[in-house]
């Protein structure tokens, strides 16, 4: 393919995830993250050309609430701005597109919205078709269980395997200071937790929580001065699947598979096994297995570490969980992952999802080296 602009992630700040922040509203959690991310890059706000964000007003019940974020993101003098009603990782995708257009060289990408102020299960019911699906009371946990059930039936995967996947995430999360759940759990512990919606147990569900994140991106020529080890975007792709759940094969994710293939090809990789670390926005262990299948990593014979941060199973700040995966991939490549660092990581894959049963999937491939010369 024709050479594209090299764009990198150069900074990332995240508020540690908590079940409920009793002392701050969403924008007050966000403000210090924007400051920290810019400080990390050694620049003032005026050095940033573009601002993008992802959030959903229904999450914390503030109609047109995204405009409140402008007051804490340094939006004066008047800025060019884009807001998506999507996980903020998709906003990062658009920042990348914008930089390819060549009219901006740097961007802040923000994710925010207090999960604790509303009832997400009710809100996400409204994401479904209003005539056939929503009125019967389907919630994301119920649809996730439908998908898990389809996957288990198709593959013969056992409950024990789901418990082991969840436990691996929980052990990893104990080393991540930003995680919500920092108590490791064993597969035995988790396999004994009650059913939430069978075949998913309570111990298999990603705990939502309050956080806010700010990621900084910059194009070649600017990125080097903002970060000593930029994480260059080498490939990316996003795909959306049908809204009608019955029209999709829930035992697999065709969208995730295609997005992964395209992103890997763009990065010049033959297989995801060439990655050193993978961060997946999987809200339960069955989703993680489906995504690994989509990436071609669903084999027992090794492969890169999955979710060394503990992943969403150790903290799922809805609408920013995907951007956290991108931030974690950056931390791994930039040598900023602390106790959960994967040694000598050079290639990282980050994934974001939105919608019921992995309806929308986005993959980033990041590398320590530029993709295009």
């Amino acid at each position, binding site marked *: 393919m024709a050479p594209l602009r090299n764009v990198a992630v150069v900074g990332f700040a995240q508020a540690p995830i908590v079940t*409920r*922040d*009793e*002392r*701050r*509203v969403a*924008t*007050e959690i966000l*403000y210090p993250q924007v*400051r920290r991310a810019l400080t990390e890059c050694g620049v003032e*706000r005026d050095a940033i050309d573009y601002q993008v964000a992802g959030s959903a007003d*229904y999450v*914390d*019940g503030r109609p047109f609430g995204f405009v409140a974020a*402008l*007051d*804490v993101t*340094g*939006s*004066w003098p008047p800025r060019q701005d884009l807001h998506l009603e999507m996980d903020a990782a998709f906003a990062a995708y658009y920042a990348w597109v914008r930089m390819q257009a060549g009219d901006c060289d740097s961007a802040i990408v923000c994710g925010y919205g*207090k999960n*604790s*102020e*509303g*009832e997400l299960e*009710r*809100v996400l019911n*409204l994401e479904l078709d*209003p*005539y056939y699906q*929503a*009125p019967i009371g389907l919630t994301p946990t119920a649809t996730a269980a439908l998908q898990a059930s389809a996957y288990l039936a198709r593959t013969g995967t056992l409950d024990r395997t789901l418990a082991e996947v969840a436990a691996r995430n929980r052990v990893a999360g104990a080393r991540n200071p930003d995680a919500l759940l920092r108590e490791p759990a064993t597969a035995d512990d988790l396999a004994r937790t009650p059913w939430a919606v069978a075949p998913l147990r309570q111990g298999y569900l990603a705990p939502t929580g309050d956080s806010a994140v700010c990621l900084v991106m910059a194009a070649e020529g600017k990125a080097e001065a903002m970060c000593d080890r930029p994480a260059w975007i080498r490939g990316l792709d996003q795909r959306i699947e049908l809204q009608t759940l019955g029209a999709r094969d829930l035992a697999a994710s065709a969208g995730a598979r295609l997005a992964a293939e395209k992103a890997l090809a763009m990065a010049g990789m033959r297989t995801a096994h060439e990655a050193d670390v993978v961060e997946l926005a999987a809200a339960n262990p069955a989703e993680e297995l489906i995504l690994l299948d989509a990436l071609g990593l669903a084999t027992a014979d090794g492969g890169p570490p999955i979710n060394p941060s503990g992943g969403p199973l150790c903290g799922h700040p809805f609408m920013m969980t995907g951007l956290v995966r991108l931030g974690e991939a950056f931390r791994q490549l930039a040598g900023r992952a602390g106790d959960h660092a994967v040694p000598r990581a050079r290639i990282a894959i980050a994934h974001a999802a939105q919608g019921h049963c992995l309806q929308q999937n986005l993959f980033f491939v990041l590398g320590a080296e530029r993709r295009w010369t």
Partner: protein
Amino acid sequence: MTEPPKEPVRYVETTVHLPYHYVAGDVRARYLAALKEKKILGARCSRTGKVFVPPLVASPESFAPCDELVEVADRGVVTTFCVVNLPVIGRNIEIPYVASSVALDGADISIFALVQECRPEDVRMGMRVEAVWKPDGERQGDHQDIQYFRPTGEPDAPRESFLHRL
């Protein structure tokens, strides 16, 4: 396809119930608690010194933190206003009434306020007004604690004193 039914279903009834539980946040909590004591708090920008009312954690203008809460006066100047002849959703206010921006003494931005105890045609830019509080024991720590603003009878403020606070 067969013909649609002769008596089609014209509507689908859907009830959406979404409860929310808002945290006030430390800054708002202090501001609201102060209203109960007939005090109005603002926050001072650590870079420009500007005072924002109600208080904010950061200056939207300078991006610097506002880490100092300061008390401003419960009186100020009408900067801009309009005369409303349309009924208000959710409030029982006699029309016409005057909706005004009031720059409180000590504040660098104005707040929105009702102006009463005068004829709408007498309200003007630069008019000095003061808060009329609910009586002691009735204030709840919310915005209704200030019932409205009324003229003080002081001489009008010169235009230069408020044109930057519209």
